[in-house]
């Protein structure tokens, strides 16, 4: 065969990217590189470098030779594992009742699924001490009545207790969603073939709901494993995250142990996420079956109802305990060694507003800007990924989403390591500048905003954009006039979610904030809670934080609902036409 005939048709390289797209992508990439990838990369690198700059594993050897670190490592695993167990004990029955039974308390259960999330665990921790602690309400009453004491809040127990109560909604919501996604026909097919009762549950329902459970459980594990603020507030330091924090803040940035622990935190988080992902591979049944009405909801027997109430009511009490506790504490004159406060006052709120109003204004400013950055970045990344053919665009998405696997503490340490020696004109460090805190908050919450923006963009039919291009609008005009306005509802929800979660972020904040005047709300609560006299004002700040987060959560939900119904109306009208 001659070369002339055999020569394949040369594929023309089609670069369908405009200059502005390339510039946008490069700007986003530079941002992610500077404030996420490089800092985290430096943390990882530092863990493997000897003082001369060579590669070494000696720091890891040191880590595993030091009994305190080993103990911390096992403690973190133990706490995260048991938190998953206890969170499951709370969540699984609730999810089953919610998804499978006609139960009058369904709304109550749904509320249970949200209440803990609006209260940052470190805020609840102090209140839990007052209610369940050694000399808390419950133990004082138990001592009076039965001469009995429960060590619920002692050491690791306290962390497990607080975390399980805070994070069980993740399992509840994921499991309930996957239970109600099971097509009723699946279950009926099982019944039709002769299975019933426990057999049905074991052979059909459990395997089909496993993905939802695992998704929730792995999330709880990772969150608890990485958490810094809750153990610190409970004075538990023999866990990994507090150890890393203490090494970096007390021994110094040059100490390798902080970095080694950071690497271990990332590795375990990644392992949990990847592990659950592998377990779930090929088992994402829920998306394969659409249209089914969900599991048939069956009537409960009187006995069943009684059992359900006997479970739901105590759980409600547990869930409300930190809320009630923090509210009482914020209104209490003195609350010590007594089941309830001695007297009530509004003075703590006055103290907070008078002496440290900056905690509130800083939070509004920092988190507002951070959420705005998130929404802008989310739109740009989602648009580049889903609406252009830019080479390497998937990497942008991956890089932004990778923030999920980076504990706040680790990002904080990385920022310190990378930018501590860079000085601002005033002589302050760039790493502890308040602007940097905004950037870090933005990076931390970017995955949520990006998911929101991506979902919103998917709702915008391509033809709506093409119609604009067809009548003369360029890419930028189309994005501004058609795409973004149509995404508005989803973006508003993303903004509010980013704002609310940034407002109660404490792990990176603890590492990066050096001055009270630059501190946000969450840091303020932490500072106040350090002293007995500050507990009242700290609780008052906590109540304000909870109310703000609750309000934002409600607003995000309301916006999303309105959007959904608007969409439903639109498609109805189109179908009816």
């Amino acid at each position, binding site marked *: 065969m001659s070369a002339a005939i055999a020569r394949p048709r040369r594929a023309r390289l089609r670069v369908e990217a405009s200059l502005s797209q390339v510039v946008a992508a490069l700007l986003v990439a530079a941002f992610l590189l500077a404030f996420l990838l490089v800092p985290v990369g430096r943390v990882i690198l530092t863990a493997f470098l000897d003082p001369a700059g060579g590669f070494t594993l000696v720091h890891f050897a040191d880590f595993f030779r030091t009994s305190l670190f080993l103990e911390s490592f096992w403690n973190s695993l133990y706490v995260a594992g048991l938190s998953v167990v206890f969170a499951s004990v709370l969540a699984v029955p609730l999810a089953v009742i919610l998804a499978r039974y006609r139960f009058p308390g369904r709304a109550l259960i749904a509320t249970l699924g949200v209440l803990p999330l609006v209260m940052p665990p470190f805020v609840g921790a102090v209140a839990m001490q007052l209610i369940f602690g050694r000399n808390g309400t419950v133990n004082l009453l138990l001592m009076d009545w039965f001469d009995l004491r429960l060590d619920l809040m002692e050491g690791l127990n306290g962390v497990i207790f607080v975390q399980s109560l805070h994070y069980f909604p993740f399992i509840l919501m994921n499991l309930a969603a996957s239970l109600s996604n099971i097509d009723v026909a699946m279950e009926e097919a099982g019944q039709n073939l002769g299975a019933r009762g426990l057999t049905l549950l074991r052979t059909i329902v459990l395997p089909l709901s496993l993905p939802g459970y695992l998704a929730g459980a792995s999330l709880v594990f990772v969150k608890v494993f990485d958490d810094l603020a809750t153990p610190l507030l409970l004075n538990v330091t023999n866990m990994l995250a507090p150890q890393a924090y203490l090494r970096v803040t007390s021994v110094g940035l040059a100490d390798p142990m902080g970095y080694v622990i950071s690497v271990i935190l990332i590795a375990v988080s990644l392992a949990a996420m990847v592990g659950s992902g592998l377990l779930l591979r090929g088992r994402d049944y829920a998306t394969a079956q659409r249209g089914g009405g969900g599991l048939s909801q069956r009537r409960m027997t009187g006995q069943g109802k009684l059992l359900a109430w006997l479970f739901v009511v105590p759980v409600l009490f547990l869930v409300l305990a930190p809320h009630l506790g923090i509210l009482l504490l914020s209104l209490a004159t003195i609350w010590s060694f007594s089941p309830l406060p001695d007297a009530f006052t509004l003075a703590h709120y006055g103290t907070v507003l008078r002496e440290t109003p900056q905690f509130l204004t800083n939070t509004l400013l920092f988190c507002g800007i951070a959420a705005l950055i998130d929404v802008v970045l989310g739109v740009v990344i989602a648009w580049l990924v889903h609406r252009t053919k830019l080479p390497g665009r998937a990497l942008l998405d991956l890089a932004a989403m990778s923030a999920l696997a980076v504990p706040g503490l680790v990002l904080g340490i990385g920022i310190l390591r990378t930018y501590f020696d860079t000085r601002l004109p005033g002589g302050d460090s760039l790493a502890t500048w308040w602007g940097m805190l905004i950037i870090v908050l933005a990076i931390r919450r970017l995955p949520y905003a990006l998911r929101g923006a991506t979902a919103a963009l998917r709702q915008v039919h391509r*033809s709506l954009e093409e119609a*604009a291009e067809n*009548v*003369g609008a*360029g890419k930028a005009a189309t994005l501004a006039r058609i795409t973004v306005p*149509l995404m508005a509802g989803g973006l508003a929800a993303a903004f509010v979610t980013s704002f609310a979660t940034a407002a109660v972020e404490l792990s990176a904040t603890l590492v990066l904030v050096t001055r009270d005047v630059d501190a946000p709300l969450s840091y303020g609560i932490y500072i106040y809670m350090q002293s007995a006299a500050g507990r009242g004002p700290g609780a008052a700040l906590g109540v304000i934080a909870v109310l703000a987060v609750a309000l934002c959560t409600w607003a995000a939900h309301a916006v999303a609902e309105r959007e959904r119904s608007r969409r439903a109306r639109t498609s109805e009208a189109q179908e009816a*036409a």
Partner: protein
Amino acid sequence: MSVEVEAVSFGYGATRVLEDVSLSVRQGEFFAFLGPSGSGKTTLLRLIAGFGTPDQGRIVIGGRDMTRTPPWSRNVGLVFQNYALWPHMTVGQNVAFGLERRGVGRAERDRKVRAALDLVGLVHLIDRRPAQLSGGQQQRVAIARTLAIEPEVLLLDEPLSNLDAALRAGVRQELVALQRRLGLTTILVTHDQEEANAAADRMAVLDGGKVLQVGPPAELYDRPVNRFVAGFLGTANLIEGEVSGGIFRAGRAVLPLAEPAADGPATLALRPQSLRLARVAEPGALPARVLRAEFLGGHLRYTLDLDGLTLIAEESHQRGRAPLAPGEAIQLVVDPRQVSVI
């Protein structure tokens, strides 16, 4: 403006969608791309609008090479199959958008918006939102939005597919009337042969990314170039056989041909309504047997056996005339002038 598609090929990755497509649409013509789904007709329309760049070939509009011109610089109006009205804008804002992009002043813009809506008879709905309109009204707004920019070419992507069957014929007639009034070069994409037949001056039948035949609807119907075109445009009896000396033979059936045809294997296309069913013997008639009879309202469709060949014949329904029964023997009269050789 005329539209020339010159040797255009297009694909997504390894999937070839259009293969060496050439055709030309004349100034002021109502042209149709007709083909089944997956034939590439919508892709071709989108390439003309600028959504996608051909791998090879050129697209010339009004004598200018537009192959690499972005959609917003083409002045080619596309009416989307799903209308693609912007739900966050009123009808008026939808129609005004393209004029805004062109920097048309406010007063002039308002005038043109009203004129465009007037063309489709919807000025009174100018402040409504798309969600408040019926499907038919949404489509008219989509057309008005496109016409407002005074496009050089109007592209219609399956404009009738989202409408109730009862509305379709009326909307089709309105579209044709509008096109005639504006003298606007128009390309209609459809999978519905009736729609293309009724509306188009000329049409192209596409299948598998290739243009099979171009011409006026009746010509394509009467003289299909291949089995696909013959079968896609209405029902056709396709009979495999041999031509020799101006006579077509298939099994024992023999048909003289009215038009000259080359000797050799050939396929004969015969429309069902071209077969006349005689109740009594006639000279030149072929004896056949009824296999199945279907009453379809305006006409009856018979499946016939002619010496082993299965043929479809249609006869208009007349009150009082008894339908033929399966098993009945009849005489088949074929007019050689109605036969085409593929």
